[in-house]
């Protein structure tokens, strides 16, 4: 009886498992094999196993570490900025959302736009002749920086990413804030806790799990950024804005360095696996 149940459940889950094995498991194996092979577009079907040369090539490539450094800084900075602004907005503006939800709809609109399209829109916004931002800066201050030049591109991209994804952090904090029981706030008020003290002592601690989740999600998304950076600066701006995703893409499509691209993918795969494994263990211990 028990075993027939087991089979039944297995059958129900089989399509999903099979699909993932074919579409992700197989590519993962291909990645591993190619990463230790001599490989070019001509020899795709019979890779020659050749040891760890590709890994050496990647790990000694200065551009690889520059890309890592960009992704890390980009992910951290945007995650922190988005969470700080999002948290601030969710708490400070909370009374506005009491009986109306349309302001929330307006704030979350950017989340619905494809990051690639958002990036393209900023090409218009920041364009020196057709863009309103340089136009007004010239009119008001008689000067306008080159937003996508080597010196300011990084910060321009930070602002672009932060403005689009702050609503995500805001929404999470908004939900968490609404979930705090009203009695808690009343009790705190009776005890004489006002304004900031109430936020710092009661509301913020209750929202800490949300804060951790929001920081993590936004960091991961920022770290693997591709779309908006690619359409805004590509690998331009003197290579100063090449994220890890863009590095892999370009190694493969622009330089046809398949071995290098695949080895970089494997490094990234192992790194993200280790981070996730560590986080999961940490989360499980916390739950106990």
């Amino acid at each position, binding site marked *: 009886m028990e075993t027939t149940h087991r089979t039944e459940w297995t059958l129900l889950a089989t399509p999903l498992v099979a699909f993932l094995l074919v579409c992700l498991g197989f590519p993962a194996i291909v990645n591993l094999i190619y990463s230790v092979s001599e490989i070019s577009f001509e020899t795709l079907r019979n890779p020659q196993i050749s040891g760890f040369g590709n890994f050496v090539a990647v790990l000694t490539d200065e551009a690889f570490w520059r890309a890592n450094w960009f992704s890390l800084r980009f992910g951290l900075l945007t995650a922190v900025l988005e969470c700080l602004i999002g948290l601030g907005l969710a708490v400070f503006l909370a009374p506005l959302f009491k009986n109306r939800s349309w302001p929330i709809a307006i704030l979350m609109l950017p989340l619905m736009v494809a990051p690639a399209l958002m990036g393209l829109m900023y090409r218009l916004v920041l364009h020196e002749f057709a863009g*309103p931002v340089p136009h007004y800066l010239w009119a008001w201050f008689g000067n306008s920086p080159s937003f996508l030049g080597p010196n300011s591109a990084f910060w321009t991209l930070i602002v672009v990413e932060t403005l689009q994804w702050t609503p*995500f952090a805001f929404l999470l904090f908004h939900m968490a804030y609404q979930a705090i029981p009203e009695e808690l706030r009343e009790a705190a008020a009776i005890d004489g806790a006002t304004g900031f003290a109430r936020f710092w002592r009661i509301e913020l601690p209750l929202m800490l799990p949300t804060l951790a989740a929001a920081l993590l999600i936004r960091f991961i998304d920022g770290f693997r950024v591709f779309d908006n950076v690619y359409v805004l600066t590509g690998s331009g701006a003197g290579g100063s804005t090449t994220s890890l995703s863009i590095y892999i893409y370009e190694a493969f499509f622009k330089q046809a360095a398949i071995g290098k691209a695949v080895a970089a993918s494997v490094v990234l795969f192992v790194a993200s696996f280790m981070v*996730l494994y560590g986080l999961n263990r940490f989360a499980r211990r916390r739950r106990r």
Partner: protein
Amino acid sequence: MLNAIRWAVFALAAFAMNFPLIVTLVTSFKSAREISTNPGLWINAPTLENYVTVLTVSDRLNIFLYLANSFAIAAMGTLLAVLLALPAAYAIVRGRFGEKTLLPLIVNLRAVPLVIFAIPIYMMFQFMGLLDTRFGLGLVMTIVNIPLVLIILVNAISDVPFELDEAAMIDGVSRPGILVKIIAPVIRPAIVTSMIFGFITAWNEFLFGLMLTTSKAVPVTVGASFFFAASGGGVQWGVAAAVMMVGALPPMLLGLVMYRKISGTMMAGAVKG
């Protein structure tokens, strides 16, 4: 007084976050001449000529093809994800199948940069003739959508009282029968939410569209960038702006219809993720 400040802060935040949308919308209603003389936020002589140009555009840049591609790819990536995830979610919740292995593995997939699978998928697709096909990109969108769809469906099925299953089992309904006749109708709102989420995600995807398509199956996110390179001279900003508005509109409309559901779903995704 404090509330006035709040409204001011809200207005500022809404303006800043939606600024590129506002600029693009305004520019899309300006003639080429006006854009060069007046790049500001005010329109002197509103015109629809950019939209006319976009919708009657040559066969080299075919907005209808891009929109149809995006729609087909997103629809397939959404439907297939739900079809695969629904029975699996049922087995995970009621049969405790892979609750400790399969579920965490798939949930964590959301945090893995999918670019690491991009190259082998490209080569696989080349081998199978799936490059530049809607079907191929639809498969990739299915992968992208599966984690969140599974989380939503697992949560929803967990909330269905077990008594419903039991009653059906006593009546002699089979497991797949219970899933189709009892569970699926009860969690229909969750299924709809997951589909809308999946559709928006797939519509907005760019990296795989860029890599795996060249002409026939180009989605609108990639196609829009073609308008920036088109036609010799400079970019036709008015036309480009109209294209971006058209490409961004479907997910925005879906989002506006659904926004009450969306924050809740994000929360569920974040807690599990």
